[in-house]
């Protein structure tokens, strides 16, 4: 028997992202319609697109969905927006939630659009939309209408507060979902250290919600294709999704009436297991304010033997005796003492200095990296977590790679995005059989 390669070599060959294009796509053959905007709905459809589904994104004619116009400090960068509006561009906010999709335009308000939507639904497996609850029903393209032309359709609606209930008639955003669902109430520095509830920089509830919805869709496709032969209507409330991820907060409140509070960069269950400040910048003399800022590092040494090692490193052997037991370390008042001692020790060090010393002692740590440091790290480059793609429309783009690795049917990034309506001819012509004249007429009337 030939000797098996060691585990690292085995994985590296199996998961090399550069070989992805030579392998089959796991969701090839499924067609998904995505009438989505911002991040919640688009991210859901994009996960399916990364896995190889044919995703047709349908946007308002000419200018597209609003996320194209939402961009850091108003610099669009990706031109053109569409063939009709070449002087405008798509903002970077659109990036990351729309790869691999086909882009068509359609004005849902028009009666011709309803007919086109029903024809598309008849030829698709999945429909994803995140307009306000009931809007698509009003336009005659809700689940009730589409399931009549295609009973096998899996129809996923995503939105703020759900399609029913006393608070349903409200729009929502990621940060509203996080505020009302309970996430901000337990995020941010503790009140007695001067903290306030904090929002996450990333639209976490949107990306997580999109993932939950994608899981529901895959489950519904499994049920359709192996059990029942029928489609299903799925609802995802963004606020509900946030509440679902509150971990122990609700059981704690329900049984003991204790309201979980913010605990900043430390942990309520483990100590030491948090982020500390290092007093020196990693870029001495830099005039860039982001680089002149001091560094931060995550330190995890909650097990007794690790904590003892950590106390040795920082020259505070007495702490190891005083707080020898984890039950003592994790108490709120003692965490303050311990973290203050760690920060006092790190005051004259950079995050890299601290990492070197902790590595030597065998203590788990990780400097807090900025986007530049993440992009340049060889580990992420080798795994394809960040990669340069040769985008057919926009040229060289630095892009996040799919986070899930599959040995035989890997997900992949084919292109980052396309202009509004880029695939009108292909989809309306080939899929719906519209003639060149009909496409031109629809374009002229701004239906597409």
């Amino acid at each position, binding site marked *: 028997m030939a000797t098996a390669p060691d585990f690292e070599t085995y994985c590296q060959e199996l998961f090399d992202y550069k070989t992805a294009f030579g392998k089959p796509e796991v969701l090839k053959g499924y067609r998904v319609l995505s009438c989505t905007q911002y991040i919640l709905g688009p991210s859901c459809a994009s996960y399916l697109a990364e896995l190889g589904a044919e995703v047709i994104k349908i946007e308002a004619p000419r200018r597209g969905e609003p996320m194209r116009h939402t961009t850091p400090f108003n610099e669009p960068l990706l031109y053109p927006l569409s063939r009709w509006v070449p002087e405008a561009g798509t903002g970077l906010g659109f990036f990351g939630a729309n790869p691999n999709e086909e882009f068509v335009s359609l004005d849902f308000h028009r009666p011709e659009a309803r007919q086109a939507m029903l024809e598309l639904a008849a030829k698709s497996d999945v429909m994803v939309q995140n307009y306000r609850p009931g809007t698509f029903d009003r336009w005659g393209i809700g689940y009730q209408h589409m399931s009549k032309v295609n009973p096998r359709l899996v129809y996923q609606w995503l939105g703020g507060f759900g399609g029913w209930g006393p608070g349903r008639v409200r729009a929502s955003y990621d940060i509203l979902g996080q505020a009302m669902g309970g996430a901000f*109430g337990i995020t941010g520095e503790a009140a007695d250290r001067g903290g306030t509830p904090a929002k996450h920089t990333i639209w976490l509830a949107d990306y997580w919600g999109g993932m939950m919805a994608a899981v529901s869709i895959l489950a519904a496709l499994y049920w359709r294709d192996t059990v029942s032969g029928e489609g299903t209507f799925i609802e995802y409330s963004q606020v509900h999704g946030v509440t*679902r991820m509150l971990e122990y907060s609700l059981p704690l409140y329900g049984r003991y009436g204790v309201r979980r509070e913010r605990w900043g960069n430390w942990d309520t269950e483990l100590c030491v297991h948090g982020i500390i400040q290092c007093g020196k910048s990693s870029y001495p003399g830099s005039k860039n304010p982001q680089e002149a800022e001091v560094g931060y590092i995550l330190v995890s040494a909650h097990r007794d033997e690790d904590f003892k090692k950590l106390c040795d490193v920082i020259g505070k052997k007495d702490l190891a005796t005083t707080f020898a037991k984890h039950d003592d370390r994790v108490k709120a008042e003692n965490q303050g003492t311990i973290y203050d001692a760690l920060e006092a020790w790190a005051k004259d060090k950079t995050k890299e200095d601290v990492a070197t010393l902790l590595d030597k002692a065998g203590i788990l740590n990780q400097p807090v990296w900025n986007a530049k440091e993440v992009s340049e790290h060889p580990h992420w480059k080798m795994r394809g977590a960040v990669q340069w793609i040769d985008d057919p429309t926009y040229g060289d783009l630095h892009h996040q790679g799919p986070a899930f690795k599959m040995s035989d049917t890997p997900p992949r990034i084919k292109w980052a995005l396309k202009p509004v309506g880029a695939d009108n001819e292909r989809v309306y012509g080939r899929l719906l059989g519209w003639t060149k004249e009909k496409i031109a007429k629809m374009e002229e009337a701004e239906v597409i």
Partner: protein
Amino acid sequence: VNPCKDGYFMVGGGHDRLWYRIWRTVGQTRPDLEDEILDDKALRMVVARLPHLRQVKTYTVLADWQKDYSRADAMRELLAQQVASGGVNYVDEVAEDPHFKYRGHVDQVEDRLYGKVLYGTTPMLAHKAPARLKWIGRPLGYDNEEVYLNLLGLGREKLGDLKKRSVI
């Protein structure tokens, strides 16, 4: 997210239509603040409002209005103008929210082993085959017999042996 009378409050309305609805709401009780924003030419278009100092102005003026409003009152006023907004809910408030309770976002489950547990339920609602919570967890090895006897077909003797040797 900014402070208000009884906590923190979120208002979302970057695009022009919503932007003016926010200030119409504010102007009902604080016309001075509405004027301050509407008179500022630099704040008229969505793209012009993004630079840091203009955001500081926007949020300072908004917080001046909402400091006199509780989360519930501010939300009522803004929702009347269809502006997406809401307070930062603490965990107890999440558990008591009438909309969440009605829809079962938070539910008290009667767990056979652990009794009553308040729980954030699954948001994956599929109408024909919905996801559900059956139990919250079980003690270590609780299902050993079910799995090793019925699924793997090990005999009781073998199971006893594995237990004795701490393999399972």
